[in-house]
């Protein structure tokens, strides 16, 4: 907690000067705005039933007008400065968070829930800034208002002032009392809502089942039962919570009356003027507001601190160690050697141990195994998304741990089954790896992968915007775009992930041919599902439960009669009954 607060100072530091100005403006505008009722009170005192003293009256009114105008200007400037502090801080913190994400090790990103990371960058930052800065400014003006109001009231008449000051907080207690008692009702309401939503999701998500089994009437009855329960609870929750306003208003009106009574009594004795009484009555109606705001601010500040803590947690996560100054891998030929490599995601579950593999430039390695066998682990290591824990991987004889990540990754072209397109045009997506590609190069690459014909038929050709995650393209088309992307950047080594079954036959054929063209003369690692791919590989890696269990050619592996043979027989061999 303390640490979080200290870190906050650092974040806000850049806006420090503005914060000081904001505080000064807040104090000034509060004082001035509270001074206006006093001037009005004095003006009223000049209006007696016995006669009106116009000269001093107009003097007070003029002063009031000037002060009101100045107050308004100060308030406005303060508002703008506060906005600036808030929005700039949000922007800065968000930038830092995003930069951090780009530099975090894959291990951290894989292990975090995506929604959680997202909400740290978006929602938490918002809440942190709103809560903290707005909360702080409300807190500050609230305190100044309370003190200044008290001071002004005391200067008018101590007795009446104390009545107002002591009675006003009563409404706070009433509000707190009501709020406490409605809390449990709201909890119950959200529980019932939760179960209603669950039912709705089930019945609407399973609409076909409901229809097929004539379940509509029964589900309507279930819904109705929950709905009736919700009605009773909601009505009570809403009614009781809506008591807060009227009851505090009632308490306030009692306070107002009490101030009026005591004020009037003391006015009879000449202890207070009518104008003074008017000023105190004005203050009495406003005195509750800062109390309410401050009590609201406390929860908001707590929330903001929690959010800040979550953001700092992300900021404190160690980034991938910098590889500045490391060797740059150039003119890659594509000889890959894995020497005695050990790796595991968590220390208590050893995964790959003493793994050796040598792939000559231009050779193909097929990776096979059942779903979830850990084929991505290998990709993770080759691309250095994760670092090996023992042994080394070399490219053209260079240990990849000793070259820059960027130069290593530039050597690879990667097409994953889980195709990813960024929002932008088709062209933006194709030139991802080669931003300066010419139109001819782009079209040539697209023609080579048979993507050109479908791109041409899109509404705006190469400039057709691709929706979020390629929403408007079919799975096969997305895959073709990803292949074109790699075709264009023409790297010496490839990592390919064959699609399983979600593409129609014709497109699949195209994808296969595109893959074939792409692999020509390149070192390739292919996560393979298709028998033809597997059998044309120079070496087959068989993976199971995250580990490489066998490796060799098709013939040698079949002869061995191990896991590969089993896999082959169950997946590809004829399956007559």
């Amino acid at each position, binding site marked *: 907690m303390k640490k979080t607060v200290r870190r906050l100072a650092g974040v806000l530091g850049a806006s420090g000067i503005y914060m000081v100005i904001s505080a000064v403006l807040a104090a000034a505008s509060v004082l001035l705005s509270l001074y206006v009722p006093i001037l009005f009170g004095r003006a009223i005192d000049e209006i007696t039933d016995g006669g009106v003293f116009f000269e001093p009256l107009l003097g007070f009114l003029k002063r009031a007008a000037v002060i*009101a105008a100045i107050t308004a200007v100060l308030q406005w400037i303060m508002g703008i400065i506060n*906005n600036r502090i808030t929005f700039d801080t949000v*922007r800065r913190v968000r930038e830092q968070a995003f930069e951090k994400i780009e530099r975090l090790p894959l291990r951290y990103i894989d292990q975090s829930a995506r929604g959680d990371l997202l909400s740290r960058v978006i929602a938490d930052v918002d809440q942190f800034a709103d809560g903290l800065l707005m909360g702080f400014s409300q807190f500050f003006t609230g305190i100044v208002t309370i003190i200044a109001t008290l001071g002004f009231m005391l200067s008018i008449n101590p007795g009446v002032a104390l009545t107002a000051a002591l009675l006003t907080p009563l409404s706070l207690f009433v509000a707190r009392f009501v709020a406490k008692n409605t809390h449990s009702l709201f909890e119950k309401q959200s529980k019932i809502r939760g179960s209603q939503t669950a039912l709705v999701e089930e019945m609407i998500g399973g609409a076909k089942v409901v229809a097929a089994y004539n379940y509509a009437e029964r589900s309507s009855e279930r819904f109705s039962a929950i709905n009736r329960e*919700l009605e009773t609870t*909601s009505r009570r929750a809403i009614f009781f919570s809506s008591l807060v306003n009227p009851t505090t208003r009632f308490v306030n009106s009692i306070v107002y009356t009490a101030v009026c009574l005591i004020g009037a009594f003391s006015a009879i004795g000449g202890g207070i003027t009518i104008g003074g009484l008017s000023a105190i009555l004005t203050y009495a109606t406003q005195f509750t507001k800062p109390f309410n705001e401050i009590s609201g601010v406390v929860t908001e500040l707590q929330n903001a601190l929690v959010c800040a803590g979550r953001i700092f947690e992300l900021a404190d996560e160690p980034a991938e160690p910098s590889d500045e100054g490391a060797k740059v891998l150039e003119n890659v030929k594509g000889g890959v050697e894995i020497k005695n490599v050990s790796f595991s995601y968590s220390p208590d579950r050893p995964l790959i141990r003493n793994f050796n593999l040598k792939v000559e430039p231009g050779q193909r390695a097929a990776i096979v195994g059942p779903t979830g066998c850990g084929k991505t682990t290998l990709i993770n290591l080759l691309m250095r998304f994760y670092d090996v824990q023992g042994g080394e991987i070399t490219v053209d004889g260079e240990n990849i741990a000793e070259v820059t990540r960027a130069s290593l990754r530039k050597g690879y072209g990667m097409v994953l089954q889980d195709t990813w397109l*960024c929002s932008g045009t088709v062209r933006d997506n194709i030139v991802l790896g080669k931003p300066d590609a010419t139109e001819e190069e782009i079209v040539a690459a697209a023609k080579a992968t048979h993507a050109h014909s479908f791109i041409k038929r899109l509404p705006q050709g190469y400039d057709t915007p691709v929706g979020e995650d390629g929403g408007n393209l079919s799975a096969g088309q997305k895959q073709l775009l990803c292949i074109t992307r790699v075709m264009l950047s023409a790297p010496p080594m490839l990592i390919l992930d064959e699609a399983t079954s979600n593409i129609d036959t014709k497109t699949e054929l195209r994808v296969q041919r595109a893959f074939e063209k792409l692999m020509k003369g390149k070192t390739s690692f292919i996560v393979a599902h298709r028998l033809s791919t597997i059998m044309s590989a120079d070496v087959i890696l068989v993976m199971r439960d995250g580990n490489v269990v066998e490796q060799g050619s098709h013939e040698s592996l079949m002869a061995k009669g191990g896991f590969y043979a089993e896999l082959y027989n169950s997946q590809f061999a004829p399956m007559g009954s």
Partner: protein
Amino acid sequence: MSTLLKYFKGYRFEAFTAPFFKILEAVFELLVPFAVAAVIDNGIPSGSRAYIVGMCGVMVLLGVVGLASTLAAQYFAAKGAVGFSCNLRQGLFDHIQSLGFGEFDKIGSSAMITRLTSDINTIQSGLNMMLRLMMRSPIIVFGAMIMAFTIDVKSALIFAATIPILTFVVVGITLWCIPLYSRVQRRLEKVLLRTKENLAGVRVIRAFCKEKTETERFFEENNELCREQKIVGRISAAMNPLTFVIVNLAIIALLRQGAIQVDGGKLSQGLVMALYNYMSQILVELVKLANLIISIPKTAACAGRVAEILNTPCSMENGTEKSFSGSEYSVEFDGVFMRYGGAAADSLEDINIKVKPGERLGIIGPTGSGKTSLASLPPRFYDVSAGEVRVFGKNVKSYDLAFLRNAFGVVMQKNRLFRGTVRENMRLGAPDACDGEIFEALKAAQAAEFVEDMGGLDAIIEQGGANLSGGQLQRLCIARALVKRPKILILDDSSSALDYATDARLRRAIAALDYSPTLLLVSQRVSTVMHCDRIAVMEDGRCVGLGTHAELLKSCAEYREIYDSQIKSEEAAK
């Protein structure tokens, strides 16, 4: 909007009494400044403490009566708003359930869920607020002005001038900001999208070394967001200072005018104060009114969306026929064409297949070839666009839907079980099935063993079957269909998660069912359909082959192609 009005049924009284009591409350509040004026004009000058106490007593009384009417108003508003919303929710739920799948596909299930939950909740709180504030705020504002007129016409003119100006500023700034806020919202969504995209594509981005470009793009969008936020901020920051100046200038004018009137003997000091108090009250209420105004378009948008669904008619007309007659065929597709709503092309074209009772028909073809569309026609999940689908000799459109579907056991591609016990799920289609019958079905579906392991029929299935594996889920769904002892059984790719041996056992058990249902078996695996009596080969919405496995191997190129790619692997490799 009128669609929704009928859901006030049973709550009309509340809808009128709530605003009524709110009006009472406002009236009592408007009387308070008069009492204060009386204290100042009569009580203090005469030094009569009794009079002052009396007037303060009147003020307390006004407070108490005001509180009472507020409580009544809040109660009726809560009851009316909640009651209306619950009526609406039930009505919408029932309407949604009555819709056909065509409408379902069009609207989308997530939209429906949002309408039923958060949209109606928004309507509820909007309505509650409207019932309470719609009357109060205008009455306080205009009531204050009317009161001012009863006190002094010349001073009241200042009210008449101030109120429009204040309303213009408060409502104007509010309305000005609404579209700006939605622009900020859209910018924020872009920033969110960019972040989301970067997390999803983290491997690709790093593989292409795009971290820097992505960061730059994020900065750009983030800057845009910040800029838009500042624009709105600048405008909305003007609201408080502006209203502050206007109200205070109005009070200054009021005091000056009041002074002239008092000087002329037309007004008393206390009444000047009353006018001053009324002016202060106006501002608070106008701000509340502005908040209400913000919530109106939001509520109206939600109401519009809900009404849209309620106004969507069910495109499927129910038939009346409630009996099957003997017929040579159990299912007939006769020149069937079918097109989904909004689609550009037909999903099924000229399908002609006749299936005899007890026959097993396999349906095979690549994704998107129309297998599922075909299988969903006999239980009339969709209507054909041309041709006719007959079940036991009669057009499916002539049957009562519930009656028709009762004859089917359907297992869909996306299997779904409901939260509850295994027994409850098994009884979905046959509410009276006894445990013995259920177990018989579980056995045939190869599910009896693991159900026993789970703890029998009382074992709990979590929402969406989260505590089951894909294969278990599929087998339970098949069992659920078998419990009905259906005349026609439709299995749509429903054994894809089963291993080969279990799949084979399942097929044998289904073939051996004593009530021998007609079977429509959809699959992508040749091995699953090759033992059917006949197989229909689908391609691009057309049936390109119909016959036994052996016949098709000879006559149907498409079937052979599929067979080759899946079974005759050796040759494919070379």
